[in-house]
C-alpha cells in the first residue's frame, strides 16, 4: 500500500496534523510516538482495546482449570479421611486463584500480541528509527491521487520531513 510519512519534532504539530487528516478523511492514519501521549490518543479517538476480553476469558478459563485439576485428581484416587468430602474447595481455591492469574496474565499478553500484530518479522514501510527516539511520525495509507494533499497537510502542520513510501 502506498502512502506518505511525515516526521515531526513537536508534539503539538503532530497533533494538529492528525486532526487535519482525520477531518479530511484522506486515508488510514498511523502515528508513531516515542512514548504514549494522551494528546495523540485523543486526536486519534480510537475505541477501547479488546485486550480486556482476552484477560477476562483467560482468567475464567484459568480459575476453572485450577479447580478442575485439583477436584479431578482427588476424585481419580479418592482418599477418604474422617468421612470428609473428597474435594475440599477451601484449599483448592489456592489453585483456582493461582491458575486464574497465570492464564489471565498469559492470555493478556497473547491479546497484546494479536491486537498489536507482533511479533513482526520486518519493519513495515513508513517506520523510521527516529520515531523511537524523539520524533513523532505520521504514516497515511492513501491512494496516489490523495498523496499530494496529504503531503501538503503534513508540511503545513510543521513536518520536518515528508516522503512517499510504498
Amino acid at each position, binding site marked *: 500500500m502506498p502512502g506518505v510519512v511525515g516526521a515531526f519534532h513537536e508534539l503539538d504539530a503532530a497533533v494538529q496534523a492528525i486532526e487535519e487528516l482525520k477531518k479530511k478523511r484522506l486515508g488510514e492514519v498511523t502515528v508513531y510516538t516515542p512514548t504514549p501521549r494522551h*494528546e495523540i490518543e485523543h486526536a486519534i479517538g480510537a475505541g477501547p482495546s479488546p485486550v480486556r476480553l482476552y484477560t477476562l476469558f483467560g482468567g475464567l478459563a484459568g480459575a476453572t482449570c485450577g479447580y478442575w485439576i485439583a477436584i479431578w485428581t482427588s476424585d481419580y484416587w479418592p482418599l477418604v479421611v474422617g468421612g470428609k468430602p473428597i474435594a475440599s474447595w477451601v484449599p483448592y481455591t489456592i489453585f483456582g486463584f493461582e491458575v486464574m492469574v497465570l492464564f489471565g496474565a498469559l492470555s*493478556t499478553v497473547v491479546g497484546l500480541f494479536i491486537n498489536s500484530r507482533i511479533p513482526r518479522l520486518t519493519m513495515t514501510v513508513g517506520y523510521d528509527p527516529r520515531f523511537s527516539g524523539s520524533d513523532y511520525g505520521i504514516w497515511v495509507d492513501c491512494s496516489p491521487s490523495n498523496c499530494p494533499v496529504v503531503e501538503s497537510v503534513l508540511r503545513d502542520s510543521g513536518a520536518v520531513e515528508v516522503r512517499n513510501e510504498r
Partner: protein
Amino acid sequence: MATMAPPLGEHDEILRRPNIASADVQLPAVKDYEQVDREISATLHPTVAWFIGLGTAIFFLLLGISAWCYQIYSGLGVAGYNPPVMWGVYIITFVFWVGIGHAGTLISAILYLFRAGFRTTIYRCAEAMTVFAVMTAGLFPILHLGRPWKFFWLIPYPNWRYIWPQFKSPLIWDVFAILTYLTVSSTFLFVGLIPDIAVLRDRETNPVRKRILSVLSLGWRNSDREWRHFARAYLFLAAFSTPLVLSVHSVVSFDFAMSLVPGWHTTVFAPYFVAGAIYSGIGMVLTIIIPLRRFFGLKHYVTLNHLDAAAKLALFTSMVVSCAYMEEWFVAWFSGSEFEKAFFANRIWGQWWWASAILYTCNMVLPLTLFSQKLRRNTVWLFIISITINIGMWFERFVIVVPSLSHEFEPWQWTSYRPTWVDYAILAGSFGWFSMWFLLFIKQLPVIAISEVKEILPPKLRRRHDHGIDSTGHHLDFEPSTPGEYD
C-alpha cells in the same frame, strides 16, 4: 559519558519542598528525550568495575556449586541438620529470597495502580531483582532435597502409578504459587522491556547485536495501535500481579502456619509474611539502586525524592512487621498455651536471644531513624539501613524456622542448631547467583525504563506554554482547543 545533574543550588526549590505530592515525579535535570536515550544507553557499556563485580559474583557462585556437589556426594548430613531441626539455612534462605522478590512487583504493579510517581525510575531495577530473586529462591527447595534429581516429583503430574501430588499439601500450593509468580513477573518484566529494546535496536550500529535486539523487540514500532493495546495489557498485568504478590508469600507462610508447631501455628502469618517480604524487598532495592545511581551517573534520574519515598515505604512496612512481632508476643501470653509461652520465652530470653536481638534491632529499632527526613535523604545512611534490613529479614526467617523446631512440645526433643560451612557456602553462592544475573542484565538491557521516563518529561512543542504533571502523575494536556494555540 552521562551528564551529571546541575549543582544542587539550581534545584533548591525542589529540595526545599520534597514532600509535595508531585515532587517525586519530576526530573528537573532531564531536559529532553534525546538526553534520556543517550544517558540510559550509555549505562550499557561494560566497565572495569563491572567486570570485577561479575568476577566476584561468579567466584561465590562457584563456591556454592562446589559445596552443593560435596553435599550431593556426602549426603545432607554435612549441612548441619540436627533432628528435629530438619529445616535450616536452605529453607530460611528460600523464604528470604522469595521475600526479596516481592518488592519488584509491589513497585511495578501496586504502585503503578496507585499512580505513585516515584516508581518510574526504580521499577525496572526492582522488577529484574524480583525475577532473579525468585530464580534464586526456586533453587533452595531443590538444594534441600536429599535426592535433588527427583525434584520434578513436585510438579503436578501423575508421577507414580497414576498418583498425583497431594493437592491439600502446602508444599504443592507453594509450587503453584512460586511458578506462577516467576512466570507472571518474568512476563511483566519482558512486556515492559519491549519498547525500550526497540529504542536500543534503533540506536544500535553493531549488525549482530541489532539483529538480536530486533528479535527481542518483536518488531515493535511505537505505533499508536501498539501503545494503545500495550497500555491496556500493562494495566491488566499490574492488576493480576497485585493480588499475586499478596498471595505468594501468604502461601509460603502456609508452609509453616498449617503445622501445629509452636510459633508457627498462627493465623497472623500470612499478612506478617507479606509485610515482611515487602519490607525486605524495599531494603534490597535500596541496596542495589543506591550504588547503581552513583556508578552509572544516574543521580538525576533516581533522585533523592525517589529514595525518600522508598525509605518511607520501608519505614511503613517495618512498623507493620513490628506490630506483627508484638502481636505474636501478645498471643503467646493471651492464648494461655504453656507450649507457646515456653517457646516464646526461649526465643526471646533463652538460647536464641542473640538471633532475636539482631532481628528486633534491625527490623524494629533502626528503621525508626527513617522518621528523620534528613536521614532519609542521606544516601550513606540509607544504604547502611538497607543492609541492616537485609540482615534483619534473614534473621527473622532464622528466628521463625530454627527456634520453633528446636523447642517443640517434648522436652527430650529440645536441641540446638549450628549451620556448617556447607550451609554458609551455599548461602554465599545464592548471592553470587543472584548478583551474576543482575550484573549481566544491567549491561544488556536498560536498568531505567526509557519510555516511561519520557512519559514524565514535557514534550517538545512549537510554542512554549505550560505543560506539567499533576499531583497524581497524570499529564496536564496542553489543551489543543485553546484559541491561538497554533497561531
